[in-house]
């Protein structure tokens, strides 16, 4: 058990180091500053006092960058190992293939969550300074559910990395995430309006697709709505863990059958 934890820990550490070595975070930070700083001093029609637009754009950037980091990190873990053939020494070690998948997944997740924590801390400080509202409960819930989002998308990207080429994986993951964020909430009404066979396809997407829109609390944070019930938060996080477990189970099965 102790050995198991040490092996997984080592794999997590490698993924974390990989993110910070590539300086992705610095690029993302600079980009955010370039976009947000001029907007922070903007007063339309010479009237100051508007702040929600800035919160909206800041949170949009947080979502965009966290998705890019999460999917990017998870999608490139295995292909890079196969390409540089470093997978062979790894497989030669006394570690099961299932544990390699789990360790790499946890590493990708830890790296993405660490970046997300930095983003939310910066967002919380920005809001506190501008609006004197310091880390409300709904922001904490938004952060928690955002972790749920990363749990799902990193598992999805990892599964895709064992099934497709990296570019196809990134494209498909991107389309799925954006598609579900935009249309996920409206799927039931779209299903009702569609004739067969489109209806059957949409029903399948609704039943099996990753409902990443569950994790999006931006509307509540930006417009000062009340927090979500903790029971709903728990259900959504359970959904994330269940979905990720299914993806990882499939990824583990694929990796075990893969001829390297």
């Amino acid at each position, binding site marked *: 058990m102790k050995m198991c934890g040490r092996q997984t820990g080592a794999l997590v550490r490698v993924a974390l180091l990989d993110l910070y070595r590539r300086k992705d975070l610095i690029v993302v930070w600079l980009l955010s500053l370039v976009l947000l700083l001029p907007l922070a001093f903007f007063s*339309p029609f010479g009237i100051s006092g*508007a702040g929600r637009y800035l919160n909206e754009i800041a949170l949009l950037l947080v979502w965009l960058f966290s998705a890019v980091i999460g999917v990017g990190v998870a999608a490139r873990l295995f292909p890079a190992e196969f390409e540089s053939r470093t997978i062979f020494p790894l497989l030669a070690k006394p570690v099961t293939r299932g544990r390699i998948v789990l360790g790499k997944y946890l590493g990708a997740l830890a790296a993405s969550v660490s970046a997300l924590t930095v983003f939310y801390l910066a967002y919380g400080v920005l809001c506190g300074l501008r609006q004197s509202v310091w880390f409300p409960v709904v922001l904490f819930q938004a952060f928690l559910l955002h972790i749920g989002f990363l749990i799902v998308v990193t598992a999805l990207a990892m599964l895709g990395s064992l099934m497709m080429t990296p570019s196809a994986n990134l494209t498909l993951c991107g389309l799925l995430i954006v598609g579900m964020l935009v249309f996920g*909430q409206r799927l039931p009404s779209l299903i009702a309006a569609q004739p067969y066979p489109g209806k059957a396809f949409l029903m399948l997407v609704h039943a099996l697709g990753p*409902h990443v829109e569950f994790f999006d609390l931006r509307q509540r944070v930006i417009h000062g709505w009340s927090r979500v019930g903790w029971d709903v938060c728990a259900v959504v996080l359970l959904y994330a863990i269940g979905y990720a477990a299914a993806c990882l189970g499939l990824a583990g099965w694929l990796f075990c059958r893969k001829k390297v």
Partner: protein
Amino acid sequence: MGLLAAGGAVALGLCLPRVFEGSMPQVPGEDVLHLVLGDARQELSMALLAKADEYFHGGVNDVACGHGMTSVEGAVPDHDPAHGESCPEHAHAHEAVRWRDPWAWINGRVHVQEHRHLCNDQATELLPWIWAACRASPQNAQAYQTGAYVLARMTGHPEQGVRLLEEGHRRNPEDAGIVFSLGEMWLTHLHDAARAESWFAAVLPLCRPAEGAVGENDRLLWVRALFYLGYLAKQRGDLARARACLAEAEAVFPEHASVKDLRRLLQQ
């Protein structure tokens, strides 16, 4: 070498419109954004205006609400936020959805399903989107009118509203709606009857209503402008002018409330 190439490009850019004057697809005075985006600018502008409307409804879109930004006086909580929780019919429906479609149930719980309007003291939150809508497409007259309404009525800056409408008028000189809004703004917010009258008078030549339902908006604007012109004429004692306005309005839209109001005003 680079500078030479850049200079050559600029010179070519300056020469081409002169050499091929009249035979180029662009209209003189159009900016780069217009050339690149074309009609997409109007769509972008409408999307930004829709975003402002979403902000007015507390960030909730797809709201089945009859109140637009320009038709409600401040915050009107016309739906009890706790209604869904307390009403037994709603509670039963939510429970049914929970088991029939759990994903829709979660979405309904995570995303706000309530209905509220922005208070007047928070109306500044709408301004960035309206500003962007006006800049995205100067041909979007609705953006200018909505912006002026928000500035004058909701944030208490009628001077800024007039400035915005004047900018809209400069860019859309043929739009009767903007001219009419300018008249209303001068009359109701800045209390300058003389200027308001000149703007209302300017509405009339711009209203060229087509036959049937297509010309409905122009006819309404015409009648409303005539109402204000008649009202202002009565205020300064020019009854002949007021009666002329009433006669013209009766010919255009005899059953309209403004015509009835003007008739009643002149009978007093």
